[in-house]
């Protein structure tokens, strides 16, 4: 139990003292999560919209597959990405292994089904009358997408925030693809895993608190988007 208290105290120390290795991990975490969120939201919103909005043959099956993709283990994604970007892999030339970009690619694959599935299910719930109204007001395809998504913006926010939580806390991809290299690809979660493995539980807790603090700040700055 003590290490939890110690961890919280240590977290404050880390944040205040500006511990170099902590800050590089914070930066790495922010970098990869921002890139992967931008990519996965950018791709997931329209995909989720299309799946949720239109009725087509096989929609139910597609939804089942999408739900299954929510259960992609991170290590699995990590391995798959590794297979592609390792030296021997088809994309080995790009030198993406052990880089933040590599991690971001994996995390995008992780977050994309989450954003897509939740968006689809929210869009599916959209009032038929809204669709008819938009069409009857002369909205083109883009306007329909944009307006519908804006109508359900609180739900979309939840999709994004859920995916963000997933990305922020994943370890498997960062470890496998990033290699947990100190000062470079070490993210907070891989650092937590390391400290825990070292038996430095208090440090693990401290870094966990740092991560949650980041999430809190991000969510706080998003909360202006919430329903007033």
């Amino acid at each position: 139990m003590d290490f939890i208290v110690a961890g919280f105290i240590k977290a404050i120390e880390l944040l205040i003292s500006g511990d170099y290795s902590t800050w590089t991990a914070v930066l790495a975490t922010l970098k990869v999560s921002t890139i992967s969120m931008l990519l996965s939201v950018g791709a997931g919103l329209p995909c989720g919209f299309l799946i949720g909005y239109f009725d087509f043959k096989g929609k139910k099956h597609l939804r089942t597959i999408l739900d299954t993709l929510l259960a992609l283990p991170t290590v699995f994604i990590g391995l798959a990405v590794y297979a592609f970007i390792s030296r021997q892999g088809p994309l080995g030339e790009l030198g993406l292994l052990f880089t933040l970009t590599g991690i971001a690619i994996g995390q995008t694959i992780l977050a994309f089904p989450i954003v897509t599935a939740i968006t689809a299910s929210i869009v599916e719930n959209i009032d038929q009358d809204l669709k008819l109204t938009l069409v009857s007001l002369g909205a083109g395809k883009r306007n329909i997408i944009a307006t519908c998504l804006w109508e359900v913006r609180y739900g979309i926010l939840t999709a994004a925030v859920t995916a963000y939580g997933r990305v922020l806390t994943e370890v498997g991809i960062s470890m496998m693809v990033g290699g947990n290299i100190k000062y470079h690809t070490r993210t907070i979660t891989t650092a937590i895993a390391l400290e825990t493995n070292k038996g430095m539980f208090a440090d693990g807790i401290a870094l966990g608190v740092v991560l949650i603090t980041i999430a809190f700040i991000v969510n706080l700055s998003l909360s202006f988007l919430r329903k007033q």
Partner: protein
Amino acid sequence: KSKELMMATTTSTDNTGLLDYLIPHFEKETGISLKWTSTGTGKALKLGQNCDVDVLLVHAPPAEKIFIANGYGKERREVMYNDFVIIGPENDPADIKGKNISEALKMIKSKKVVFISRGDDSGTNKKEKLLWKNAGISQPDKEKWYVQTGQGMLASISVAEQRDGYTMTDRGTYIKYQSQKGGNATLKVLVEGDSILLNQYSVLTLDPKNCPNAKYDLALKFSGWMASPNAQNLIKDFRLIGKKLFIPNAK
């Protein structure tokens, strides 16, 4: 149910498959069932300190001694060893092949060739730090060529392979790596044989004063069994791709 023992051990004993090979014999002979969790040495010691396990099998002698001195551990029984080696790419850019360990490290530093460190405070990592110190080199924590993975041995070897770097590994894991590569491992053993490179494994029992609930008697039985001629022979016979991984040395 009472004849059940919980052990924390380092990843190398588990990852090489030694325990899967050894423990069924132990269970058969003693009637004690043994469960183990394999983690970093640091965490294994911590689990012992917190009494969450009954016995430890680890390889970090200095840390083990402190553990006992702090009143967490009771007996420390050396059971086997293997050795550490420096491996690196065949073309050996820092030209360390055949050199002694301190010279080799100096070469690596001066040529700034990538060196992969586990950086995870494991037994291996502790040994590596000691070697830098012995070579008179201050810990190159923030050097660009010094890459700390914070991961297990195999993962670190794989980083070394991808980055064309050197690393220090225990021989057991290296052989495992070789076996996985089916004989065409790109990293070769370049430095070996120094007595400082010995990697001693020991069984630690917990001090019943600290952990009254831990099964001290069963733990003693386990450490006794590990030192028994029977077990020592089994360890001697454990091979991977025809190579020995551990050398029994119980006294």
